[in-house]
């Protein structure tokens, strides 16, 4: 197989260890005087967007940043709980840049690009330095040094954290850097603005069309480069751990204007989420992977066991992860843990009223920590009650906010009874295809963070999303953007009066008018639910050719219904969340179709993409490296029509193997 | 604006002024209560008059009295300004507000309690301080304050007003004492208990002591 001639990943030549450092020393630069005349548009203000906008403004570029929320601080990066990885080796447990690189490639089931991932591992340490310098209050040990914990898919402790609110602390750090630039006037912030299209002129991206969500006004914004940092598209499944507003619109519009979509079917199903409680449910809530540091996952050995978890004796419990994967135990990667939970539930061992849940149990950890506290305080023969009290206190310090959240949502106290958990859609590894520079197939249009496809292959390891978002924004784009902008210094100010701007703006307005004029009978919300049901049933944790083919037909039908029967209340010149939602759902429907096509095309199982036709006898994912060791980059041709381009993945530094965590 | 006026007109600066003047007035209350409590010697006002004379004639005390008046004026004017600007910060009120769930009524009513105290202050100074100082200016002689007390507190309505004034003072102090420390930034887990205890004790003891004076005179315990 050879890489399609349309795709040039621009990976620097040379040994993997020196690719990035050599690149940095040889990439073209833009001098400070010219930077002042170059405008960069950043869409999205999560970890990637906020860090990129702040850093580029620090460097001297003129930046305009956009977010649909009421403040850049609300971006969904804020909800990341467990931590951020970095190859610091502070624990002296054998970590290194190579090992982080290796774990990430292996965790991604050998479907990520070596060059990008190695760069990610290289800059991971700088991220922690930068965040600490910006005042991020990471957890610390009594000696004042940084604390670490373990995450799935690794055997070292390299995860930095701030209780169960690491994403919040990192985002607020990046946000404060962004606000600093806003205060200095080097970043112009447009909150409550939604990007609705990109504008390409003579083959280069020259700006965006955005809608002011308060007034409904459609605006043109010109720039020499546009950075999409708009997050993932997990909400295509309706129920996911994403925020209600998380959407694919920006990436999808870019896709329809020429940016290829990479590996759209690679979706991460997170194993530890609070199970669905009823039809009314609007979103799912994650229970951090960090809980698997101390919690043990099990189901009853007996089918249809209805006893409460704490009344089932030890020898009647099946700790199935520890049984199946002794080397990694409860800390196997997410895709494996999710499938194992589904397997147990499908086989009839599920717990709770829906039978779609397994237990996550802290009783052992409480006892272990309780004894530890007793030892620490030189207490001999402590009572069982005291051990429990001390143990609970330690668990509370580590995971208190998560336990509180669980109690609030389910009405059960996880300090007393085991949590019930079930997998849920959490992250999308797929995204806009980008080269080593993070540029899409449209010159001048970049994509950072979860919105791009680049670093996680077919499965992302825990605590790596925060790492990638900040790596892209703080340490990659500031260098790589120079190679493009250095050729733009003679372009001059981008005029938004260009006919192309006027044309695209009109298309955007026409679409909004069409949406509001349909006045059918069904709300955007209901269409979203229906789409989610199709996607979860047929393109979810397990997929097969039959189901995917059906899904494609159903989604196409749904699209037609949407455009003839959607009911959007209100009008176009006011604050109208229904209208915003309708536009996003319309894009999700189109994306859903492409995801199913991609899943159908990829006749193998890898990472989060599990095709039932392709599994080992033990039910593990069965890759087909011979035929599918490539990135699928889809080019949009017309409605219902895409062309597949392949980027071959070459592994010079890692020996390809069947992924094993046994 | 100079840094000084800028500081004192900022939201925190205004609170700082309230706290400092408040604590100053609290210290005045101690002296005031201590000297007035001399009436409980029941010696025909001898001890009380002795100290009253000292307070009314000692040049240092008289100078400090100017500070006291200034303290009152700043505390009152600053308080009223805060009341106005705080009200302006919420032009549209809530239709339903369950403030009792998150705070005490008296902490939310410092403006109201303060205004009641201001009214009481006017009545109280009109009874004693103003006539006495006017007479001092005019004739150089002090009035017989002890006798004035005995006379004035024969009227049950006056006694009632004084008791109500003391109750207002109790609530005002109950929040104000602790609040002043918080405004000054003095909040520390080691000392909060102490501040709270002293604050509550002070708020009870001083107003109680004051209230006992008109009551005792009215009931003839002090004569």
């Amino acid at each position: 197989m050879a890489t399609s001639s349309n795709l040039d990943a621009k990976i620097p030549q040379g040994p993997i260890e020196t690719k990035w450092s050599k690149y940095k020393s040889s990439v073209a630069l833009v001098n400070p005087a010219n930077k002042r005349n170059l405008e960069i548009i950043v869409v999205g203000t999560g970890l990637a967007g906020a860090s990129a906008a702040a850093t580029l403004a620090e460097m001297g570029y003129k930046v305009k940043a956009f977010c649909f929320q009421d403040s850049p601080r609300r971006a969904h990066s804020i909800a990341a709980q467990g931590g951020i990885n970095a190859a610091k080796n502070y624990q002296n447990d054998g970590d290194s840049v190579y090992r982080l690189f290796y774990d990430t490639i292996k965790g991604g089931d050998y479907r990520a690009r070596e060059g990008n991932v190695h760069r990610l591992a290289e800059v991971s340490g700088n991220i922690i330095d930068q965040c600490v310098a910006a005042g991020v209050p990471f957890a610390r040990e009594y000696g004042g040094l940084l604390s670490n914990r373990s995450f799935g898919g690794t055997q070292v402790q390299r995860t930095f954290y701030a209780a169960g609110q690491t994403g919040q602390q990192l985002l607020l750090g990046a946000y404060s850097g962004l606000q600093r630039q806003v205060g200095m006037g080097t970043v112009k912030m447009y909150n409550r603005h939604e990007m609705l299209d990109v504008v390409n002129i003579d083959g280069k991206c020259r700006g965006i069309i955005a809608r002011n969500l308060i007034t409904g006004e459609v605006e043109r914004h010109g720039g020499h480069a546009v950075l999409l940092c708009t997050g993932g598209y997990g909400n295509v499944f309706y129920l996911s751990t994403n925020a209600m507003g998380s959407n694919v619109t920006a990436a999808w519009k870019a896709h329809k204007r020429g940016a290829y979509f990479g590996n759209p079917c690679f979706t991460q199903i997170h194993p530890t989420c609070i199970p669905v409680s009823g039809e009314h449910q609007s979103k799912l809530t994650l229970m951090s992977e960090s809980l698997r540091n101390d919690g043990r996952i099990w189901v009853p050995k007996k089918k249809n066991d209805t006893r409460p978890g704490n009344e089932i004796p030890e020898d009647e419990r099946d700790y199935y992860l520890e049984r199946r994967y002794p080397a990694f135990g409860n800390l196997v990667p997410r895709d494996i843990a999710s499938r194992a939970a589904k397997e147990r539930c499908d086989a009839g061992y599920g717990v709770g009223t829906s039978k779609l849940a397994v237990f996550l149990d802290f009783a052992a950890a409480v006892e272990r920590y309780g004894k530890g506290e007793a030892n620490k305080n030189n207490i001999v023969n402590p009572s069982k009650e005291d051990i429990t009290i001390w143990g609970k206190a330690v668990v509370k310090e580590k995971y208190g906010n998560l336990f509180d959240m669980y109690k609030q949502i389910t009405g059960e106290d996880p300090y007393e009874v085991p949590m019930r958990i079930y997998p849920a859609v959490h992250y999308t590894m797929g995204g806009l295809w980008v080269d080593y520079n993070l540029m899409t197939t449209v010159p001048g249009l970049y994509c950072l963070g979860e919105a791009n496809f680049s670093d996680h292959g077919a499965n992302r390891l825990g605590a790596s999303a925060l790492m990638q978002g900040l790596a892209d924004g703080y340490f990659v784009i500031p260098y790589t953007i120079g190679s493009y902008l250095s050729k733009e210094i003679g372009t001059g100010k981008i005029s938004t009066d260009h006919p192309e701007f006027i044309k695209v703006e009109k298309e955007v307005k026409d679409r909004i008018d069409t949406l509001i004029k349909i006045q059918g009978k069904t709300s955007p919300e209901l269409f979203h639910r229906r789409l989610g049901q199709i996607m979860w049933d047929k393109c979810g944790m397990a997929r097969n050719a039959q189901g995917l083919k059906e899904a494609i037909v159903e989604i196409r039908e749904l699209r037609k219904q949407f455009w003839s029967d959607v009911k959007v209340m209100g009008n176009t010149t006011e604050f109208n969340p229904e209208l915003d939602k309708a536009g996003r759902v319309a894009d999700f429907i189109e994306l859903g179709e492409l995801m199913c096509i991609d899943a159908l095309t990829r006749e193998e199982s890898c990472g989060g993409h599990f095709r039932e036709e392709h599994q080992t006898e033990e039910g593990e994912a069965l890759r087909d490296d011979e035929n599918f060791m490539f990135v699928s980059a889809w080019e949009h041709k017309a409605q219902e029509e895409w062309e597949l381009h392949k980027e071959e993945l070459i592994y010079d530094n890692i020996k390809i193997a069947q992924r094993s965590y046994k | 604006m100079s840094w000084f006026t800028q500081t004192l007109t900022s939201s925190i600066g205004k609170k700082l002024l309230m706290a400092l003047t408040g604590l100053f007035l609290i210290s005045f209350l101690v002296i005031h209560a201590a000297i007035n409590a001399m009436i409980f010697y029941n010696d025909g006002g001898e001890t009380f008059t002795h100290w009253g004379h000292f307070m009314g004639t000692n040049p240092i005390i008289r100078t400090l009295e100017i500070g006291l008046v200034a303290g009152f004026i700043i505390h009152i004017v600053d308080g009223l300004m805060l009341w106005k600007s705080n009200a302006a910060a919420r032009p549209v009120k809530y239709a339903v507000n369950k403030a009792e769930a998150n705070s005490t009524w008296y902490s939310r009513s410092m403006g109201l309690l303060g205004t009641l105290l201001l009214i009481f202050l006017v009545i109280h100074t009109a009874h004693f301080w103003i006539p006495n100082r006017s007479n001092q200016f005019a004739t150089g002689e002090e009035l017989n304050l002890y006798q004035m007390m005995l006379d004035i507190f024969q009227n049950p309505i006056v006694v009632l007003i004084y008791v109500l004034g003391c109750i207002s003072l109790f609530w005002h102090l109950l929040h104000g004492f602790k609040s002043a420390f918080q405004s000054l930034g003095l909040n520390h887990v080691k000392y909060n208990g102490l501040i709270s205890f002293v604050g509550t004790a002070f708020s009870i003891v001083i107003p109680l002591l004051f209230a006992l004076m008109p009551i005792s005179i009215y009931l003839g315990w002090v004569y």
Partner: protein
Amino acid sequence: MSAGNMHIKLKVWRQSNSNTQGGFENYSLDTVSPDMSFLEMFDVLNEQLIETGTEPVAFDHDCREGICGMCSMYINGQPHGPLRGVTTCQLHMRSFKDGDTIVVEPWRAEAFPVIKDLVVDRDAFDRVIAAGGFVSVNTGNAQDANSLPIPKVAADDAFAAAACIGCGACVAACKNASAMLFVSAKISQLALLPQGQAERNIRAEKMVAQMDAEGFGACTNTGACAAECPKEISLENIARMNREYIGAKLSSSAV
């Protein structure tokens, strides 16, 4: 669409935009489940309104897991409703009784104008942060993260302050619509960490000045803010801010 059978009466503030007068509308829901979140109950209401051709209620929300700080409802006279330490999105209908009438209003503050219905404009908070709520460290300037040990207690206290989600419940709860808990949380976080020392004075001066310019009220230490804060940010932070500010004013070279 839902399996519940609680009956709930709602009295919701409706207002088309910042230039118009608003008022309460009454609604009635018959299929509320105790497992629904408060916002999911509003989803049900909105579906019901759309079916009857009425414009749905606009309200701010995003993550629905209590961390983004976007949801902002004043429920039965309390920001985020009756529970302590909980945002609106994490409030569940099991906290109410069958047949209850619930009054829902937007945050009320001069500095938080209503945009529509229950949605308010909280840009003032962003401007306060832009005035000084940061450490001025450009990307790439940082030394090794472990080169500067920070006592665990300081790091923990800084984290407790930094847990603020910027929802504005403190302003909404305060009888003076004061933003001091929000502002003090950021000032505290950075004052507690060695990284924040270089700009300690100017940060306190500028953030407080911006807070005042936005039209928030002053603090009267009622404690309502901390009692209603969904992240239980402590009043100690306000005391610390007062110290920081007064200290900065007395010692900084800005005249």
